[in-house]
């Protein structure tokens, strides 16, 4: 019985669902605040100290709004795509060690890196479906752009994620995170840089926020959504950003592991994890601020002519480094 309570606590409260949602909203606030400061603005100030409750207020506001389902939409997919994509993103967190262990103890296995990346792809595909089922020209264009972009960037992302796996000689995220006495970002910085760029495209942020180009296609795939469904669509976008940053932390920045000054260790692990994750969020936000949005054809050129060959090359270089620093044995 005792064990069951702990299990429930871990899944529902910490480091499970509640922690993830709250942390996502917090990261949303950090993003908005940092972006605002970089753009010479105030950002949220009104709700809570320094506006920290603003994302929460926005979420609640959307939940209370009228829920409209247009007559022409593909009803089932339209209704469930936001929820499904959100839950898949949230579920993926179960395989990331946040406080030093996975959400469910011992749920890590050899190959969960592949599982998580696949889940991310599937959840992304649901975002595409949400737009596609809207039967609105703007949504359809936005959805097509999601798919175009995601087809292009998933491949380099997979290839680049293999580099840390190779260095750690494991496909398990916990093992990769645990084996970084020096963060892989320092061992193979070129992979890290490429990974961040690819991540930027995966997360649909500038210069790759083409599915969101509101001056061209209004709301993109979100155009027809209102109320609760829009709230979940937005939340699932935010969780995706945090998840992307979390994967980066696990693969390149040593996961939750760092110096421990006194017990209990999970407090320190969580702290390190959060700090590292915020670092990645700030980094992506910085990139968002300094670039203009590219065009979809330019993105494809960047992807197929530049990123794909570079990621293959960097993988080869990583293999070389791997044999140099971490000889087989």
């Amino acid at each position, binding site marked *: 019985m005792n064990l069951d309570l702990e299990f429930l606590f871990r899944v529902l409260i910490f480091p499970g669902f509640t922690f993830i949602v709250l942390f996502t909203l917090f990261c949303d606030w950090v993003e908005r605040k940092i972006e605002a400061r*970089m*753009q*010479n*603005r105030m950002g949220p100030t009104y709700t809570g100290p320094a506006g920290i409750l603003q994302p929460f207020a926005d979420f609640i506001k959307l939940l209370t709004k009228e829920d409209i389902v247009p007559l022409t939409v593909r009803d089932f997919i339209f209704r469930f795509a936001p929820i499904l994509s959100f839950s898949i993103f949230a579920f993926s967190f179960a395989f990331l060690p946040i406080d030093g262990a996975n959400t469910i103890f011992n749920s890590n296995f050899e190959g969960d890196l592949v599982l998580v990346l696949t889940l991310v792809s599937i959840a992304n595909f649901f975002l595409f479906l949400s737009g596609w089922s809207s039967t609105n*020209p703007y949504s359809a264009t936005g959805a097509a752009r999601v798919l175009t972009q995601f087809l292009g960037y998933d491949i380099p992302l997979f290839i680049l994620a293999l580099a840390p796996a190779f260095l750690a000689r494991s496909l398990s995220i916990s093992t990769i995170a645990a084996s970084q006495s020096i963060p892989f970002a320092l061992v193979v910085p070129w992979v890290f840089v490429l990974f961040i760029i690819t991540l930027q495209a995966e997360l649909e942020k*500038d*210069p790759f*926020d*083409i599915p969101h*180009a*509101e*001056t*061209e296609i*209004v709301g993109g795939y979100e155009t027809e959504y209102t109320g609760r469904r829009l709230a979940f669509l937005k939340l699932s976008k935010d969780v995706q950003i945090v998840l992307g940053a979390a994967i980066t932390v696990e693969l390149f920045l040593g996961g939750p592991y760092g110096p421990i000054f006194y017990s209990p260790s999970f407090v320190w692990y969580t702290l390190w994890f959060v700090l590292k994750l915020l670092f990645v969020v700030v980094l992506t936000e910085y990139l968002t*601020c*300094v*670039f*203009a*949005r*590219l*065009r*979809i*054809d*330019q993105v494809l050129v960047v992807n197929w002519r530049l990123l794909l060959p570079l990621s293959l090359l960097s993988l080869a270089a990583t293999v070389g480094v791997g044999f140099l620093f971490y000889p087989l044995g």
Partner: protein
Amino acid sequence: MSKNTDKILEALNGALGDRILQTRTLRPEKVCVQVKIGAHRDALKLLLKQDENAGISAITGVDLGKTIELMYHVRMRNTIITIGVDLPKENAKIESITDLIPGANFHEREVSDLFGVTFEGHPNPKRLILPEDWPENVFPLRKDFVAPDFQSKTENSEALKDNEQVFGDERLVNIVLGPQHPALIEPEKFTLKVEGEIVKEVKPRIGYVHRGIEKAAENRTYLQDIYLVERICGICNACHANCFCQTVEAIMGVDVPPRARYLRTIILELNRIHSHMLLLGHAGFEIGYETLFHYMWRDRERVLDIIEELTGNRIIASFITIGGVRRDLKEDVVPRIKVELEALRERMNFYRQVFENDSTLKMRTKNVGVLSRQDALKLCVVGPVARGSGVDMDVRRDEPYAAYGEIPFEVVTYDDGDSWARLMVRLDEIVESINIIHYALEHLPSGPYRVRVPRIVPAGEAIGRVEAPRGELFYYVKSNGTAYPERVKVRTPTFANILAFVKIAEGGNIADVPASFVSLDPCFSCTDR
């Protein structure tokens, strides 16, 4: 009258002979050549041959009671030559000139909407300003116009049915840009026929914010009209006020005191700076560069502060009046303005680096929406759009008004003709404007800042031109000797530039539409009036 004008008149006399009915003066120093119906095309051909930069500035219609007078204002070097034609009011028909100069397309449609003149041979004689369900044979700018009963508006409702949704070709998809769209802040409609991501055809439809200001101006006194025309465009309000005032002053023969002319120059240039900064920031927003947008708009606040110091208002200045300006510049404000302007110049250097070096920004604007010099001349575009395509024209230099004749400045031109060049023209013009304001502040003459003028304006007619931030702004005012004008014609710069959008969007990528569109700096409340 200048030597240039005399030469043109001589040539016209030689070519048309007795088809010229009479020649009269439009103040200040402009000529109107009245010709017989049908001779206007020959006259126009001749004028276009005289000067390669010539283009049509506007077509004005005036209701003279029994006849409707059409005036083709042709823009020549340093002046405007007007060709007048009298049409009978019943059965008003005239040959179209759109085949000679495509830029006349919208002008003719506007006159046809508001005066009921039929232009024979016009390629697309549809409604432009008035709504589709406006009753037939009701023309708002005619003097005998009676407002139709809008309550029982069933007469013409068939016309409302939108046939643009009909798909002629299976592969073409219609994407409707507007009247509500995030890329357009004001409402106009552009129907894009798209094949894949390539735009095949653009159909513009304006008139969504037509407020009948030209008609309203006839029912107000000249003094009231200043405040009315300022509201044609909030952004370049001082240009409208100045253009209207200088036109009325030309009819009255009032000499504006030198100090007022310099103060007008200062407010006009401040207007230009803040309008250009607004556009540059907006361009950043359109291409997804929000940081640029926020930076630019924050720096724009400095200009608004200066305008507030000078006029007491931040946007709608209400500063210029007939006979001068309404407030004097206080001496202790001058150093503050100079400091702010210097800070602005620093920022402009920074932005210049951004525009020249930022790769994503250049990827989105270089070689996007190219408008060649020939096309720019044919479509009669004005202002930064023309100068970005290498057409060297600027009313401030060609036909100085206010104090521009006494202030040295450069006209910025770029030859590339793409969106980037049009944005760079504006960026460099801001620096020029800062120089002009500096010069004007240093050489500000002393003396009165306004002269009192009578409320009754003597009978007469005049043309005024001002280089607004978006290009040449054209006013024609006719007075009948009362306190109310007989006719006020406004041709705003965007009205002349909309046709260029059709040209540059066709054949381009759909993602480039916002970027190339914003580089024209469209202002639809101006366009529709």
